């Protein structure tokens, strides 16, 4: 079975080498003389007024929780997608019922205004 994944492992290795190699070569050949202005966070030329390490607004909480919930849904899509041809129309209808119930929840949170920012 792992033999089927050899291309993926080779892909991972090459991706790692490109990433590590770029950083390594760049650190070897670039001049290194940082100063205070150069190390400042760049935001369209406007000087930052405060630290970026602030407490995050709790509004992100609802986005994070909803992401987690819909992420769990994805897990069920995976075995279905693998078996899609074998399951045929019956499997398709099953999954549409599953997704339909969740889309009801999605429409509910949308109407409820939970995805609005303010």
């Amino acid at each position, binding site marked *: 079975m792992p033999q089927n*994944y050899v291309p993926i492992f080779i892909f991972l290795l090459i991706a790692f080498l490109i990433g590590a190699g770029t950083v390594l070569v760049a650190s070897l050949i670039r001049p290194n003389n940082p100063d205070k202005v150069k190390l400042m966070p760049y935001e369209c030329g406007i000087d930052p007024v405060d630290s970026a390490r602030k407490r*995050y607004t*709790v509004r992100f909480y609802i986005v994070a929780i*909803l992401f*987690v919930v819909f992420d769990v849904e994805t897990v069920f899509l*995976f*075995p279905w997608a693998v078996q899609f041809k074998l399951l045929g129309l019956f499997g398709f209808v099953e999954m549409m019922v599953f*997704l339909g119930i969740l889309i009801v*929840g999605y429409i509910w949170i949308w109407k409820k205004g939970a995805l609005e920012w303010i």
Partner: protein
Amino acid sequence: MLETVLFLIFAAICVGGAINLLAQKHPISSALSLIVVMGSLAMVYLLLGAEFVAAVQIIIYAGAIMVLFVFVIMLLNAGEEERSATGSRVAMVLGVPGLLAAAVTTGWVLTRHGPASTPVVLGEFHGSAHAIGRLLFHEFLLPFEVTSVLILVAIMGAVVLARRGE
């Protein structure tokens, strides 16, 4: 042979990431190390032949669970941890006895039971995504559909709890 080499590589990355997790002072650095541990664990599962478990490891652990971890760190605005020079008193009192107990237990298990006569063969795990899909969409069809209602309840619970104050 190839499997053993790959297993050793990813096991080493996993243990290295775990040690780095403990060594880092900033919680965000520890969380990123944890993603390395989760990712390399997924590769170990993949080597075992458990593709579905590997995919779930990535989707749920490296995805959802890590979002919660990072979110809690950012919401609390947890800064760099302060470590006293003397270390934790609990670790001082329980460290050596705990280590001894762990070593004795491991030794006891190894001498008593020994290595298994039929070692785990990499790539011979009977729980492929195909098998799980077959089970989920035939035998366990009703539990699967009821799961969607469970997720729906989780969605509504999250929204109701988060927006209670308004």
